[in-house]
């Protein structure tokens, strides 16, 4: 530090602090990637947050198909989800623009709303183990078929838990294999998603409120 005159020390320190402040958010806020339609939404853990994702897509004006518990065969059937109808423990909604993407068009993106609900899993006849296995099959299928995976966690600390708990197992089943992770700050208080994103080089966006996803999804599917 001999080459720095004493009077510049303060200025140097100030510059370092400003640089740190500017760089810090960039670590969490990476460039938003692009994804393609048609898109399927589903739940990883059967919490109510998949409804949140669906509503946000509607607000963003993005047409989607939804199934709470699809397996690989149903995803393979593409847009329209083989005309399956909702029943107890199984819900299907088809909103994809069929004039642009006729029935059977393979999905190019799948959005997983992560969050475990024992009530939700129970209503669909699932256990944590069978839900994990279902998610693994879907993730494997997506990776083999170049389907873009978006992992979303907007449930905040209520849908987080100790390592190995139901919520964390759902995160482990999806987030490390995602092509893009979007979380609320409440959901990422411990930096778990930031760590996964860094370790796997996955783009991650952190938002203040779930409602902020409207803007993000518009950009992703632009």
């Amino acid at each position, binding site marked *: 530090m001999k080459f720095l005159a004493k009077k510049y020390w303060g200025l140097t320190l100030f510059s370092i602090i400003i640089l740190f402040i500017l760089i810090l958010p960039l670590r969490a806020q990476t460039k938003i990637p692009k994804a393609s339609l048609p898109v399927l939404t589903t739940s990883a853990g059967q919490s*109510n947050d998949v*409804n*949140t994702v*669906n*509503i*946000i897509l*509607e*607000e963003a004006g993005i047409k989607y198909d939804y199934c709470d518990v699809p397996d690989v065969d149903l995803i393979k059937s593409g847009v329209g989800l083989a005309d399956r109808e909702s029943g107890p423990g199984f819900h299907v909604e088809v909103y994809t623009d069929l004039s642009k993407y006729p029935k059977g068009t393979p999905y190019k993106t799948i959005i997983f709303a992560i969050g475990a609900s024992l009530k939700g899993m129970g209503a669909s006849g699932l256990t944590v183990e069978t839900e994990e296995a279902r998610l693994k099959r879907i993730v494997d299928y997506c990776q083999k078929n170049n389907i873009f995976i978006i992992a979303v966690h907007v449930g905040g600390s209520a849908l987080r838990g100790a390592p190995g708990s139901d919520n964390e197992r759902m995160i482990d089943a999806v987030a490390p294999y995602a092509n893009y992770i979007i979380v609320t700050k409440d959901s990422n208080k411990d930096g778990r998603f930031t760590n996964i994103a860094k370790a796997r080089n996955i783009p991650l966006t952190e938002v*203040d*409120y*779930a*409602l*902020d996803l409207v803007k993000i999804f518009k950009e992703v599917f632009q």
Partner: protein
Amino acid sequence: MIRIKIVLLIILVIILTISGFQLYHHRHYQIPIVAGPGVTRVLKLSHYLPSLKGSMADTWVFFLEGQEPGGKVLILGNTHANEPEGLLTALVIIENGQVEKGTVIIIPQFNHSASRFTRPGDGYPLFFEIPTSWGKKKFRMGNREASPLDQWPDPDVYIHYPERQLLSFLDARNVNRTWPGRPNGLPMEQVTFAAMELIRQERVDLVIDIHGAETMFPVTNCIVAPEKSAKLATMVSLTVKAMEKFDNHVEPSPPKFRGLSHREIGDYSEAMPFLLEAPIPFLDQPTGPKTERLLLDGRDPFLLRLARKKKLFVPYDETGWPMDKRVGQHLSVTLELLKQYSRRTPDRAIVIHNVPRYAEVVEHGVGYYFVNPSTVSPDKIYFN
């Protein structure tokens, strides 16, 4: 020995006389409801089911109609009369709201009989007072169920109509278990049937049933919505969190739990029902005495200790959960439901002005929005 018995008898008579007088005063105390500038019509619920006429189950229905046609919303307060945030929210809208488009229909004391009854054995205050700029406005503190003076005897088990689900005997007097009701049933079944008739005849689009729930009960600080209302409720929940910084999550209405407004109204009419819950520490069991102060400020040292042990379902600190906050949340969620519904269905829009939102109620207090009954024409004042 006889002398002791006589003394005990006299003490008993004195106790019965004093408490009897207090209960008589409570049952007959009248709460003035001021019909504000937006009120265009006032009917009795018996208009939709004449058999209610003249009974304690009958109650006022206020209409706030806009110049432009649009959608219709029914707002229910005091479904449970021991959750008075529902009544206060309804009164703020009745006394201040002005509708531009569509119709807002409000029943502020839906279970009128329950508002004239107290909870035996729980030491509820009989009255509570809300400070205003012109003095204190006094309200009866009611109970969850209708008074047995108005519906008696109770069955051993209440068999819900028409689903035949077996419910607690007390639920026969609970108007949030007797939906959709029947015209020739128990008085509380008649109340809900009359409201269903109102919903069907007036072509109501939305029904908002306003409640309070314990902090130790998971279904609190939330909007309970069935499948048909879930998307709108979720959008409202996301919006109030982002714009007004308070949590109000969405709870699904269980399809197999019958008799509740958020289930039966949706199943037996075209309307979309919503049940709003704000945390009311007064109703929790492990609290100190059930005082008027606890009812109003929601501050309790026992709940605070439980909060530190993470036993509550809502954030809780030394500030408690005051009435102003509860009413403010209900008003904001109600207004946001109308706004989001209107955005999605412009031809059935409901536009209302002059109703305060959360931050305003927290800043000024709910009493700020009550009109002094002595300053308005007597024909604008309604007593149930």
